[in-house]
């Protein structure tokens, strides 16, 4: 699946990925790949502008942490992010049901 298929969907996918557990950029990308069984073929760098944008919008928070001697930026879902994710999940389910009803 090409990156442009993901237009508008990358942000909620990232929110869903960190909903259970905080993670740094590389780990978020790995989770995206694992959960989609490798279906999302996006330029890996594009995840970082999205992370920064979500943080600016108050949906994610981030902090430096040290892991195995390496400093890395770890992202967590905020309260506003949790609420936004719920809204996007409901919207997606409605959309998917409608598409399925038409496409069969």
């Amino acid at each position, binding site marked *: 699946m090409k990156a442009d298929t993901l237009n508008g969907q990358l942000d909620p996918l990232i929110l869903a990925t960190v909903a259970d557990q905080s993670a*740094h*950029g*590389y780990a978020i*990308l790995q989770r995206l790949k694992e959960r989609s069984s490798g279906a999302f073929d996006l*330029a*890996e*760098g*594009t995840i*970082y*502008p999205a992370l*920064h*944008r979500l943080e*600016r919008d108050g949906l994610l928070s981030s902090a430096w942490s040290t892991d195995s001697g*390496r*400093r*890395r*930026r770890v992202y967590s879902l905020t309260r506003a992010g949790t609420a936004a994710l719920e809204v996007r999940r409901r919207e997606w389910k409605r959309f998917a049901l409608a598409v399925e009803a038409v496409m069969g």
Partner: protein
Amino acid sequence: MSWLDDLSRELRAHGVSARDRGRIVHELRDHIACEPGCEDRLGDPHALAITFADELATAEARNSAFVTFGALAVAAVVLIVSQITLARFAHYPGYSNGISIALFFPAVLGMLVAPQVALVAGTLAAWRALRRRRAVSLPAGEIRLINSRTRVALGAGLATMVGVELYVVDFSQRLPAWWLGLVGGLAVVAGLGLFAAFRTHLRARTIVSSTAGQAGDIYDDLPVLGWGWLRARPWFLGALASVAMGLALGAFEAHAEHSVFEGVQRGMFEGLVAAAGFVLLGRAIGARPAPAHLPPSAYSPDQLVADSDRAGAELELREGYADGRLTLDELDARLSAVNQARTVEQLRAALAHIADS
């Protein structure tokens, strides 16, 4: 040169601050350390830097407009408090009773004219930022317009507070100490707020966006003004606004002072000030047409073009396709020529019969 070096250089070229640049590069370095050799999958560093810069430029311009509006609101409260307390408890001392006329006139100009400029420019900047709050990346021209309005508003706000301080100094021997202390102190606080807002503005205006698109103007912000004939005659709008300002404030002054003569004087002054403001600042706040985004004809043919020139040319071509002047094949061919154009001559050739370049 490594992928990270390329990214860092591109971010710097687009004006991303050292702090943001450091964080971005550090995160990408960590990403590469997790899986050495994955640089190819990270994408083109130039494109990634542009994405960061476009989004940051948009967010910072909006933030700067909102912060400035807040700082101007504080300055407005200070001005209102100064005038209410002066009228009720201290009384106007009369213009000739101060230390010097040379202090009085700049003070009054700062307190009468500058707040109006700050109100118009600051409101337009904040309104555009609010209207476009959901856009991830605004066109570069639109970001420039928001920043320009913000800059005008900040300058006028600071001029207002300087005017208040000059007034305090001019009448320091006539007005009560409590009023001088209160108003002088509040003006300093409001001035510091405006300086803080100015710092956010400086941060916003250093980031370069590459997103193509129209800047828009005052007619987009105030749809009630969006009549085609008025948009095509911006000077008529200036004259209309000047007359309206003159009549409104002239009538107010005549009522407040119980004097038609005073009203006429004030009305004429306000009308002239509004007209001068339109001439001097109309373009900066988007009330007059923005400069063309194509290279001016004064450019020499072999002058090198910038990315923003190519973006403007691309927009012209897309508009040409949208209104039926170009076929899809012609559009593709000309877009390709625009992207490869290095000089003004090459760009003009790509735009032949489409734009007056």
